[in-house]
């Protein structure tokens, strides 16, 4: 008997909520807290339906007190719970980062492993819709630079569900960054390619493994979240010119899958890193350095397409001009060819 497998396309928002719900059903220790994640279902939809199903004890709206509830997540985790906590916009990390980077990320180490801190901190990233300088940042490197927290960031709904499931089951703090423009909320604009088939059953996408999302032989384009989609678009543009681009989705920033990036660059000999986070001291520098310090032979100097080192401007012409996009990646490739 053959069964037609039906495509089940979900947005990242729904995939996240589904993963959380499935874990909450089987694990009493899992609960969710944050601002407007209860009846409202999260400003970005990723807790939709949870309050109805699990009630206000396990799906708790908080006051606007990020320091207290991030700290509380750590205390609850140390006491045997598995909190999922939302920082509504990653831009708000500054009001509570001590509780994250100095507490959540370090208590395991300070206790020699005797205290475990299985917290998932989910937070929205990214711009492109004119939300200005305090609501549009990515801050990938800000979290990834500091030890003790894993950092994941999906580019599509399949990975979102699997990474969320893996994050909840992980015994360490995991920062789960979701990009607003990939979230599948119409009011934020929607990257259609992020809405993909998601199996109904529970599964994990391993934390720390990158993925080759398009194979190619002439250049490696490395990205994360929005950068992956820009990379795929650029690859299609390059293909029209007969250039074969490989696109690597990092998926995790910590651990960083340097091996997969290096393997790809060994094959292609060229590297472009795309990052919507700020240019300097960020993901793009780290990935490029990780390749060159290994002495991987290169056909051209590696290039980066990242957000300039400026606060994110509100006005559309400025913001759109500053954001990474496929054309900039293609231009970076052209620079490589010119200089080779």
């Amino acid at each position, binding site marked *: 008997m053959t069964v037609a497998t039906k495509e089940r396309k979900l947005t990242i928002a729904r995939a996240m909520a589904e993963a959380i719900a499935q874990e909450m059903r089987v694990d009493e220790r899992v609960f969710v807290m944050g601002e407007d994640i209860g009846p*409202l279902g999260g*400003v970005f939809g990723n807790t939709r339906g949870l309050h109805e199903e699990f009630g206000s004890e396990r799906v708790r709206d908080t006051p606007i007190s990020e320091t207290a509830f991030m700290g509380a997540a750590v205390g609850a985790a140390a006491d045997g719970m598995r909190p999922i906590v939302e920082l509504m916009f990653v831009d708000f990390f500054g009001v509570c980062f001590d509780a994250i980077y100095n507490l959540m990320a370090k208590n395991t180490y300070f206790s020699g492993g005797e205290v475990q801190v299985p917290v998932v901190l989910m937070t929205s990233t990214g711009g492109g819709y004119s939300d200005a300088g305090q609501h549009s940042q990515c801050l990938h490197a800000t979290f990834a630079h500091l030890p003790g927290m894993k950092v994941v960031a999906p580019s599509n709904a399949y990975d979102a569900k699997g990474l969320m499931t893996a994050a909840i089951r992980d015994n360490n703090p995991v920062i789960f960054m979701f990009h607003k423009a990939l979230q599948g909320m119409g*009011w934020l604009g929607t990257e259609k390619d992020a809405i993909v088939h998601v199996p109904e059953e529970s599964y994990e996408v391993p934390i720390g493994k990158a993925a080759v999302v398009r194979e190619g032989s002439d250049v490696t384009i490395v990205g994360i979240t929005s950068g992956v989609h820009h990379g795929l678009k650029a690859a299609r543009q390059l293909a029209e010119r007969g250039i074969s681009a490989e696109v690597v989705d990092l998926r995790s920033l910590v651990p960083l899958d340097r091996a997969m990036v290096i393997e790809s660059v060994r094959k292609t000999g060229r590297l472009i890193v795309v990052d919507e986070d700020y240019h300097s001291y960020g993901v793009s520098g780290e990935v490029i350095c990780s390749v060159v310090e290994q002495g991987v032979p290169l056909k051209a100097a590696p290039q980066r397409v990242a957000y300039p080192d400026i606060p994110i401007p509100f006005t559309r012409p400025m913001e759109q*001009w500053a954001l990474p996009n496929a054309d900039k990646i293609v231009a970076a490739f052209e620079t490589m060819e010119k200089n080779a």
Partner: protein
Amino acid sequence: MKPSRDQKLWMYEQMHTSRYFEECIEKIYMEGKSPAFNMANGPIPGEMHLSNGQEPCAVGVCAHLNADDIVTATHRPHHEAIAKGVDLDRMAAEIFGKKTGLSGGRGGHMHIFDARVNFSCSGIIAQGMGPAVGAALSRKLQHKEGVAVAFLGEGAANQGAFHESLNLAAVWKLPVVFVIEDNAWGISVAKSASTAIERNDKRAAAYGIPGHYVPDNDPLAIFEVAGEAISRARRGEGPTLIEIETYRLAGHFMGDAEGYRPEGEKEALFARDPIPKMRRHLIDEEEWSDAQDQELVARTHARVDKAIQFARDSEYPAPEEALEKVFV
């Protein structure tokens, strides 16, 4: 200290200006956003937090301030900006993201800065409180006149910055007034679900400073209470905390379905709209005529229409200007 007739009329006019300004913004915001609502589209992209209903808080307080005094406001800044005297043309242009905007389009609706009248605001909850304390400190150190007012929402009163700023202002006895606009909601979360006590003015006792509560969104009562607090600050007697019961007539931001509101809440709020109430008061107590009212309304509309037109007509900045003004 009761408002004079002139002061009442000033407040009334600012309320109208703010309300009509937001009505215009509201309409224009929706341009390009249908059939599908996408924040990124239209002449005014991004988030839009309207303040309609909350005008009394702004006017009752700012009636006591001059251009030299300092206001730090929130993500919901229009009414406060207007009452503080922010340049309306450049503010409209900023909201449109135009080159003629207050920052040339870099800031937008949540980042309205007008140095000329010492106004600033911010998208981070309670972020303006520290700067208000610092501005007050600056005046003290410079032996210069001036009071700083930090506006915040009732949700912000649970943020750490609230506590630290009140304590610091009190320890240093600075000329600063903290004004909480309690509109009962922080996005979808009711005050009772976020705040351990009913009224935040009670928290003043934790800093040994006066706390006042103003019920019913009443601009005249706000005027009185704020006047007292600001005079106290000017006299060098230190900070005050005020909580005002106010109403948010709109959603948290545009696009908010407001499903969290109990049935009938919105209707009840509209029935208590402070602007018609104020008009009634003026008619009853201040010999205000329909003709005068129409003239005032027409004047405010003309001013706002001009600002909106200025914004519409202005050019966008060149994209590369994004690189400027990071450092000066």
